[in-house]
């Protein structure tokens, strides 16, 4: 009896087994998933759960060091740093997720077109991507935000533009190597249109490496957005956002009020670290050979 059940395992469980095996071999990935869940939960429920209003000022209670009442202390106008740090999670994650989503979609479409049909769209796309990559990317983002206007949406667009080449190149090469594969020809012979074959047969193959790229990219997008708001672009002061909180706290670090800048900075680091660990872990699951 038991013999038949073990040989009848469907393929899905094989994949699941592999995932479990990788997770067991590398518990760090499991921790990364836990950290990721924590970030998502604080983005979703943080604003409802924090003890203080992130914008409420209290001049008599300004610049207090961390205590039981204010875990992360209070800032120069008496706002609770802990509440602000937690509330900021939503904005920071939104910016980076939106930016990465845009670059994912645009990059996929451009990469599919260039990789599948080749010819002049391919040449133009490659020239265009080369040009974007010829800029130091953070500097290009600064230039874009300066040109489009100083708003949160433009931070998202700028971050999306500088991330887009990575996706477009990845999809282009994944699509390109499969456009004459046997299963693609079979699908075409069965009467499917080019676009249908592209969308249902070829593109799904590019998804696993794309997921790794997304995860690594999210961390980078957060760093980038926080960097932009650190130099005063995008998010404007009363709003709680990690980069701008570090920037405001920096003025107090030389006089020893470390908690203003350190806690938002630590949270920022934590988020980026989570996405990097997650990316490395996903890569182990998707392609164990690429471990470095």
């Amino acid at each position: 009896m038991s013999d038949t059940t073990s040989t009848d395992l469907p393929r899905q469980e094989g994949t699941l087994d592999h995932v479990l095996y990788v997770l067991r071999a590398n518990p760090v990935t499991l921790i990364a998933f836990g950290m990721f869940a924590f970030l998502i939960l604080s983005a979703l429920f943080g604003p409802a759960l924090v003890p203080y209003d992130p914008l409420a000022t209290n001049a008599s209670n300004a610049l207090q060091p961390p205590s039981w009442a204010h875990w992360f202390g209070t800032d120069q106008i008496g706002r609770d740093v802990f509440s602000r740090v937690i509330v900021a999670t939503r904005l920071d994650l939104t910016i980076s997720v939106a930016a990465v989503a845009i670059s994912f979609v645009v990059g996929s479409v451009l990469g599919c077109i260039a990789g599948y049909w080749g010819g002049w769209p391919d040449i133009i796309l490659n020239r265009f991507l080369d040009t974007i990559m010829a800029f130091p990317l953070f500097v290009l983002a600064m230039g874009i935000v300066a040109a489009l206007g100083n708003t949160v949406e433009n931070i998202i667009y700028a971050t999306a533009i500088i991330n887009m080449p990575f996706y477009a190149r990845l999809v282009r090469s994944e699509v390109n190597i499969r456009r004459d594969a046997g299963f693609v020809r079979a699908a075409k012979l069965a009467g499917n249109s080019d676009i249908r074959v592209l969308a249902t047969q070829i593109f799904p193959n590019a998804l696993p490496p794309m997921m790794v790229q997304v995860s690594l990219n999210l961390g980078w997008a957060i760093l980038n957005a926080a960097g932009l708001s650190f130099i005063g672009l995008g998010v404007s002061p009363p709003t709680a956002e990690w980069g701008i909180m570090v920037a405001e706290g920096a003025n107090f670090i030389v006089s020893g009020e470390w908690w203003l800048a350190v806690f938002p900075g630590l949270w920022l680091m934590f988020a980026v670290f989570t996405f990097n660990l997650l990316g490395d872990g996903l890569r182990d699951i998707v392609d164990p050979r690429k471990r470095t």
Partner: protein
Amino acid sequence: MLTSFPRLRAILLRLAQAIPVVIGVVVISFLLTRALPGDPAVYFAGVAADEASIEETRVAMGLDKSLPVQFVRYVGDLLQGDLGQSLSSGRPVATDLANRLPASLELTLTALILAVVIAVPLGILAATRPGTWVDHLCRVVVTAGVSLPTFFTGILLIYIFYYLMGIAPSPLGRLDFIYLSPDHVTGFYLIDAALMGDWETWRGAAKQLVLPAATLALFTLAPIARMTRAAMLTALSSDYIRTAKAAGLSNGTVLYRYAFRNSLLPVVTTLGMVFSFALGANVLVEKVFAWPGIGSYAVEALVVSDYAAVQGFVLAMALLFVALNLVIDLLYTTIDPRIGFGAQ
């Protein structure tokens, strides 16, 4: 004729490949200057401009002409080294950038040298002793290094070394007020002070440089160490290393003559990417340490909506980066004579 000098031909070919990229960079920065929300003339005329002076700026900048004509004018100005006037300083942007560039280069180059000096041996050690504490240290440094926001590392270092320990000077620029800046020769304070033989000033400048350079180095260290380790691992597991070992060559010879030389190529490739990161991170580090380089110039210009200065900075950085990549590619032929650009 060129076929008799394959090396020269390869170099010329690589130079030719840079041309479309430079054209692309110029087109994008042109579009960025013209994409300002609303009317660019209003921005370039300044805050206090009235109707007449806006119109004057429009004509002076050629903004009343069609886009292609504007582009030709823009390129013409660029060829003469004209990046427009900075509203905040009142000087030409190109002059401002040239004045401040040495400060940025001194910081970036010091940081990169520091990063390479630490990261390459770390990567080699990690690759030759996999699974030991060096390997784990390398892994921790690599993962932490890419997660650290540069501006936050800088602030932490200031807090620890300036406020708590009191061994670093106050994070305000390139030189403390008690020193006079050295005579301008290269613009690099360390070199200029050394040329003058003024070691007191040299020490002062070096002290100011340590923290920002360390901040930037911590950030650039990670990719270099990671790539060195990976490339060394690949090289060490290859057949020619086995042959070299079997032939009885000493460990040092195998490691440095054969394995390291072969893994240099991917490491140098990574350097190109690291430059891109470093030039971006430079902006943040300069803001944290009030370093008077072109990065903080751009940030100050952003604050007062001085767009000509910002776009001039973006263009200058892009051209600098293209030039750096060109130099790196040309280095390839020296490092690895097998590489011929003609074959690509």
